[in-house]
């Protein structure tokens, strides 16, 4: 087993990996950019090293600096997390050169499966259906536009590298095509350092269902079942669940087998995810392979009881997967909500800033994977994911009930979060019946939010609280000038805080 693992990432996923290392008795070495010195992953890791200024290109995407730290800290393995360099073949190659073990697939498998275009042709090769579209990166936008017209709108423009909805645009007519193309490729360039995008026919109301696979270095490839991720905002997953409400054992078997075939064909090793679109008639189409750990891996962990990060490490260390897992069955139902620092009332604009207070939900069936703490300032330089709220229950209904309950307990002040979005989704009849698709949320958000403040009691209480707040602050003021005395008041409170009783 490894002695020390370099975690080439930040935020909640770095914390997640640190926890796995600690439970395995492996030392963890974190890295941090200038704005991340105070971040939770730095506080929790066994070791932490600076790697430069805030911009990702000069820190978390800087291969040389990462390798330098790995050597300096005496690491023997590297875990990339997700995003940043996780799907960049240069990282596993650099690891090999530095005789470090990369905890993920070999560079070749990344190239064979990672780029969407390569993955699609490989899938066709093993008789897995794919969505019609260009098989190659778009060289000539004008030709692409013409093809789009022939296939018929709407079409999707997608970044060849990466995922997470970045560098992706839905184009519904000829006029939009070129500006959409510009946005997509510039966003792709910024996010993945690669501007190429390709074209894909847009299916009506498809569901996004993906298969989690594990492959060891000894030829065993197993499917850990599916996750449904159809609730997306602008192609960005916001809710994931397992099992999929529409799944049948027969369909699970077929999709699992397809995923395993693709992984084998690509010579895949370690944890990976094969994404599919499923249409109204339960036809499924291969979408892409994510050659890394997924943000939403916890829902699979909750229903299988397995720890995917520990398994990634074990596989990288050459361990064999137990035979039994070829027929693993999920237990109960799990669902994940992605809590972002963004303002649902203002077009979901990112809302970085200082977290003034925070109450985390807990109790039966609740798991919180987060990378923040009260008093920490969310930097504006990175993805605004604050936390993943995960619930497990015996049924989908119980799981949803637990999430609703947990959301009532979860409070963050100082920054905006999208918690209100979930309070709304989790009572939507379509969602409760699971009559959803990848555009469902965008459509829901177009509908006006009626009766948001329906609870008149809440308004009463708010009015009283507002008056009370002034009353208290002014009472303080009566002793001296408002400014001064309220300070003294606060000061008094705070002096207590500096003492133990």
């Amino acid at each position, binding site marked *: 087993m490894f002695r020390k693992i370099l975690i080439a990432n930040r935020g909640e996923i770095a914390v997640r990996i640190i926890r796995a290392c600690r439970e395995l008795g492996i030392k963890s070495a974190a890295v941090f950019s200038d704005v991340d010195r105070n971040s939770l992953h730095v506080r929790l890791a066994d070791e932490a090293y600076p790697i430069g200024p805030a911009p990702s290109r000069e820190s978390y995407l800087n291969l040389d600096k990462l390798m330098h730290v790995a050597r300096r800290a005496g690491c023997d393995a590297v875990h990339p997390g997700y995003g940043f360099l996780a799907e960049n073949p240069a990282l596993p190659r650099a690891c090999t050169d530095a005789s470090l073990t990369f905890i993920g697939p070999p560079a070749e498998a990344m190239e064979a499966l990672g780029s969407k275009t390569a993955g699609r042709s490989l899938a066709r090769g093993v008789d897995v259906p794919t969505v019609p579209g260009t098989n190659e990166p778009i060289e000539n936008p004008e030709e692409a536009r013409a093809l789009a017209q022939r296939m018929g709108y709407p079409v999707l423009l997608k970044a060849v590298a990466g995922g997470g909805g970045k560098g992706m645009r839905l184009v519904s007519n000829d006029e939009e095509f070129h500006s959409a193309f510009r946005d997509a490729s*510039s966003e792709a360039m910024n996010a993945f350092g690669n501007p190429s995008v390709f074209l894909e026919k847009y299916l009506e109301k498809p569901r996004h269902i993906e298969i989690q696979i594990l492959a060891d270095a000894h030829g065993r490839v197993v499917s850990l079942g599916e996750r449904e991720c159809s609730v997306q905002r602008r192609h960005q997953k916001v809710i994931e669940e397992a099992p999929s409400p529409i799944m049948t054992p027969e369909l699970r078997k077929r999709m699992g087998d397809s995923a395993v075939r693709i992984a084998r064909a690509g010579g895949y090793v370690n944890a990976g995810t094969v994404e599919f679109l499923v249409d109204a008639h339960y036809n499924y189409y291969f979408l892409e392979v994510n050659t890394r750990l997924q943000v939403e891996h916890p829902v699979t962990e909750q229903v299988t009881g397995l720890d995917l990060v520990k398994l990634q490490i074990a596989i990288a260390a050459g361990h064999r997967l137990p035979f039994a897992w070829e027929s693993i069955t999920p237990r109960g139902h799990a669902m994940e909500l992605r809590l972002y620092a963004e303002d649902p009332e203002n077009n979901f604009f990112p*809302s970085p800033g200082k977290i003034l207070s925070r109450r985390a939900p807990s109790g039966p069936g609740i798991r919180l994977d987060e990378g923040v703490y009260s008093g920490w300032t969310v930097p504006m330089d990175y993805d605004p994911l604050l936390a993943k709220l995960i619930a497990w229950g015996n049924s989908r209904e119980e799981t949803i009930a637990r999430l609703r309950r947990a959301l009532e307990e979860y409070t963050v002040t100082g920054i905006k979060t999208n918690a209100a979005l979930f309070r709304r989704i989790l009572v939507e009849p379509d969602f409760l019946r699971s009559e959803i698709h990848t555009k469902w949320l965008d459509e829901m958000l177009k509908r006006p939010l009626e009766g948001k403040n329906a609870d008149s009691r809440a308004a009463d209480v*708010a009015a009283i609280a507002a008056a009370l707040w002034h009353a208290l602050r002014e009472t303080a003021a009566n002793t001296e000038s408002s400014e001064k005395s309220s300070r003294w008041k606060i000061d008094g409170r705070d002096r207590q805080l500096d003492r133990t009783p």
Partner: protein
Amino acid sequence: MKYEVHIDGKKRVVELSRESEQWRVSLDGMTLDADAVEVTPNTFSILLEGESHEVRIAPMPDGSLTLHTGIAEYVAEVEDPRAWRGRRHGAMEVEGRQQITAPMPGKIVRILAKPGESVEIGQGLLVVEAMKMQNEIRSPKSGRVEKLFVKEGQAVNAGEVLAWVD
């Protein structure tokens, strides 16, 4: 103490009087059984007729208050009738020239509407990139782009004025 609270589009009258540790509260002239405590700084636990509520309060730079009640969020402006510091009220700032400000620090990546162009409500004005996501800033009203204060590639701070729409 008597306060006028402008909240949720209404004007509420709140009267508070302290009795030992408890607060006597009347809302719009109706007396309520209330018990309020500041359990942690700026977080109030309020027992109203037995119902347990919690309100987190954030004072805003403009003197108004943002209140979170777990299920809903409100902005309130409080006036103490005795003190006549005149304050703007949410209700008053409507119509006329709309000032478009940057909701957060970021970079202008694309201008969608030139000065003089007429725009529909909800139509995109510019695209700001922040936290690696490109976000379109839309027009709050139908009208004409009166002035544009930024150009493509320019970095902007939160609150910075980007354009006027009239």
